[in-house]
């Protein structure tokens, strides 16, 4: 072959043990990427490995355990610089021209700051607390707080609060389901997140695709998004929600817009997003009415007016180099919550080149924003939500110790309901029924079971967080907030430690 075609070198091998295979056809039916088919003359089930995306659906569903899906390990001659993915991407673009798309979050080998931070524990001088015997409090308030309270004694001699407190969200666990739109996800996943958030006393975020009518009953635990496409934004949509969020950017694709192809816009999505069936849903890169911080201020106050100043307004930005100054501007523009979305954050669809090389880690963003807002004495004005690649409860603890008030979880939530991180969300063919609107495939995601799994995940994290607070000798999450002295760095440079505001392991205090 003169030219390498895109499909010359499969990425996965699908090994089928024909001694075990009973030719039931299940794997054929389950493979949404048409990689597996039945070969009648051989009476065999075969996989075209070039089409396999490694989603492992067939492996999970095979009743006899006959299938092993593995990444090809020895595909090209070893090269530490020109790795297989780089080579394959060049073949692909030479084949087709155009932009290489991807889904999910940045999987490149950049330093993971979470994994260079270690948590402190108590010994002797300061007893740790047993979370099974003592209360351990995770309740978190998100929104603007006054700098001070005014308390006076009334005629009865009882202290009384004089200060009027701005509306705040109250989360019983500082973990919120990240914005992922209806359209990118199907309604089953939205149902599951809403029900789980409700059950756990936390929140979920609609993403930019608006809120399906059936889910209005979950308004009290719903954060609704207003993005550049303004899909389905109505007075009612804002009113029914607990908070509204202006989406400026997304960690997976800072500075670029979104595109939901017309094929995905079915009847229900059309009604919810308020666009005609079959039309592309385009989110422009910027909001066309926001070209400065003053413009943002106007939109923030337009939403506050529309909701009678009864709801906090959040602004979500991608973590970029100048994030501290931008966040300060947003706080001064009247936002009550700022979401910092790091470069590990997931996406339904993004150019791979943008996902992989634009933005900064959320660990760094949280550290610099928290520090900046403190230096300016305006940290009380806003709450900070860290988003983009939060993987476990230790990441949550570290994020809060660095200065966040709460976190968003997107990828972790998808994993909880079956996602295998195949990164093919943009195809609309998700074999696990998550990022697909094909009604047939979407049925694979049972909203009740998915909700239960999300609840289990949050419960597990809550237990672990309480355990970790206890071993730090802390019984309320607010004493962890910005408490960088309880973190130590391992294997970081002096500059990195300065930016994160942490000391190296081995240094006491």
């Amino acid at each position: 072959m003169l030219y390498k075609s895109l499909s010359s070198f499969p990425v996965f091998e699908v090994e089928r043990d024909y001694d075990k295979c009973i030719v039931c056809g299940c794997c054929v039916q389950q493979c949404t990427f048409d990689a597996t088919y039945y070969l009648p003359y051989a009476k065999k089930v075969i996989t075209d490995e070039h089409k396999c995306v490694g989603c492992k659906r067939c492996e999970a569903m095979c009743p006899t355990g006959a299938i092993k899906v593995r990444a090809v390990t020895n595909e090209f001659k070893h090269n530490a610089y020109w790795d297989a993915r780089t080579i394959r991407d060049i073949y692909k673009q030479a084949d087709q021209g155009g932009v290489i798309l991807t889904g999910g979050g940045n999987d490149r080998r950049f330093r993971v700051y979470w994994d260079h931070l270690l948590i402190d524990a108590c010994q002797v001088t300061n007893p740790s607390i047993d979370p099974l015997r003592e209360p351990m409090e995770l309740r978190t308030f998100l929104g603007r707080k006054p700098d001070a309270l005014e308390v006076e004694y009334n005629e009865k001699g009882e202290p009384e609060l004089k200060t009027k407190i701005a509306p705040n969200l109250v989360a019983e666990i500082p973990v919120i389901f990240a914005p992922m739109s209806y359209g990118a996800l199907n309604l089953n996943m939205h149902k599951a997140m809403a029900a789980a958030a409700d059950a756990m006393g936390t929140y979920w975020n609609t993403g930019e695709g608006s809120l399906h009518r059936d889910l209005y009953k979950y308004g009290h635990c719903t954060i609704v998004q207003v993005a550049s496409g303004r899909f389905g934004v109505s007075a009612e949509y804002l009113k029914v929600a607990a908070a509204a969020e202006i989406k400026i950017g997304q960690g997976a694709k800072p500075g670029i817009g979104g595109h939901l192809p017309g094929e995905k816009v079915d009847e229900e999505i059309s009604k919810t997003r308020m666009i005609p069936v079959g039309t592309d849903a385009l989110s422009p890169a910027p909001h066309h009415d926001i070209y400065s911080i003053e413009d943002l201020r106007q939109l923030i106050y337009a939403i506050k007016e529309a909701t009678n100043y009864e709801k906090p307004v959040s602004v979500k930005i991608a973590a970029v180099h100048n994030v501290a100054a931008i966040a300060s501007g947003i706080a001064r523009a009247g936002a009550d919550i700022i979401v910092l979305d790091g470069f590990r954050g997931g996406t339904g669809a993004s150019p791979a080149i943008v996902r992989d090389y634009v933005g900064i880690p959320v660990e760094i963003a949280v550290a610099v924003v928290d520090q900046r807002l403190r230096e300016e004495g305006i940290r009380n004005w806003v709450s900070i939500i860290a988003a983009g690649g939060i993987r476990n409860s230790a990441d949550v603890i570290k994020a809060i110790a660095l200065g966040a008030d709460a976190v968003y979880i997107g990828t972790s939530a998808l994993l909880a309901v079956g996602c295998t991180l195949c990164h093919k969300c943009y195809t609309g063919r998700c074999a696990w029924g998550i990022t697909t609107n094909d009604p047939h495939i979407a049925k694979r995601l049972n909203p009740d079971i998915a909700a239960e799994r999300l609840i289990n995940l949050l419960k597990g994290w809550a237990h672990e967080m309480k355990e970790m607070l206890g071993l730090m000798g802390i019984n309320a999450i607010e004493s962890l907030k910005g408490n960088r002295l309880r973190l130590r760095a391992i294997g970081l440079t002096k500059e990195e430690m300065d930016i994160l505001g942490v000391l190296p392991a081995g240094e006491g205090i």
Partner: protein
Amino acid sequence: MMVLTRSRELSGCGLSGIISRKKNLIPGEVIIRSITHMRERGNGLGAGYAGYGIYPDFPDEYAFHIMYDDELARKETEEYIKQRFHVIHYEEIPTRKVKGIQDSPLLWRYFLRPIEPPDESDFVEEDYVMKAVMDINDKIRGAYVFSSGKNMGAFKGVGEPDDIGEFYRIDEYQAYLWVAHTRFPTNTPGWWGGAHPFTLLDWAVVHNGEISSYGTNKRYLEMFGYKCTLRTDTEVVAYLIDLLVRRHKLPLRIAAYALASPFWKDIDRMPENQRRLFTAIRMVYGSALLNGPFAILVSWNGGLMGLNDRIKLRPFVAAVKDDKVYMASEEAAIREICPSPDRVWAPKAGDPVIALFEDFDGGTQFKEHQV
């Protein structure tokens, strides 16, 4: 300032306080006896006292007690002071030679009146004094202001409490409010400034415990201009009290609830009005919550407050006899100086014990239910 190590002081300690609400003078010898009775709780590596009403000759001047490493630090500090204050009187702090006390720094005291800057319309005298204290402690090498209130003074150093008492001639002072502290630091000691009490203006704090929320408290205070330079967690208690009570004007009892707030499970069961109040306290002052085991005594020119952490991980006893209120780590320390109190009790976790002077008029801010 002269921090020798980067390590923060960790300590298990004993504390004792006594107040005469009618302002009858109590000889220093009494408080020495009480604190010395808890020898087990200290290891001779730090002790200190604070007395109120000890400077009747200079009742309206800020009494600065300063430790110096050397004459150079003294010169530099005195120059700084002269630019900002009228020095009404100054002298070396009188001490005795005591066998157990070595390597004492230079110890001086100054009675000061602020020179009001002509152009500042919103001049707040206390903020001005606070800034001077922060500046000296932060910027002048080898100088540390360890007392800065009116008609009160803190005395502290490395040694057993009885030796420190003798060294500073505590027995020669009379006060209507005394607090004392003995220390059991777990790391290399050696710095006089590391002993308790910690003070700012007329607030003095003695503390038994360890504050796990130190990092959160410290960064919170930094937003309001406090510099936590002494690397001991007790420092943040003094500053938090100053911020919440003096600057934010919170009622003292409410401030105590911010430092040791009730649990949500209890707040959720309160009547509406109270629930709103306590919810707001935790929302707004979450970063002021002192997490970890502690018993503290906070004294100022209005009285004495004792407070335990929210799950009572450190011992704390209070007693009343006539016009006197006693608070200490152990009942024995109280019985040593007051054998038959009218009432002795162990205060509940997070519930402040407040004893004010009868003539103290702090307005509604201090309209507290007292012992």
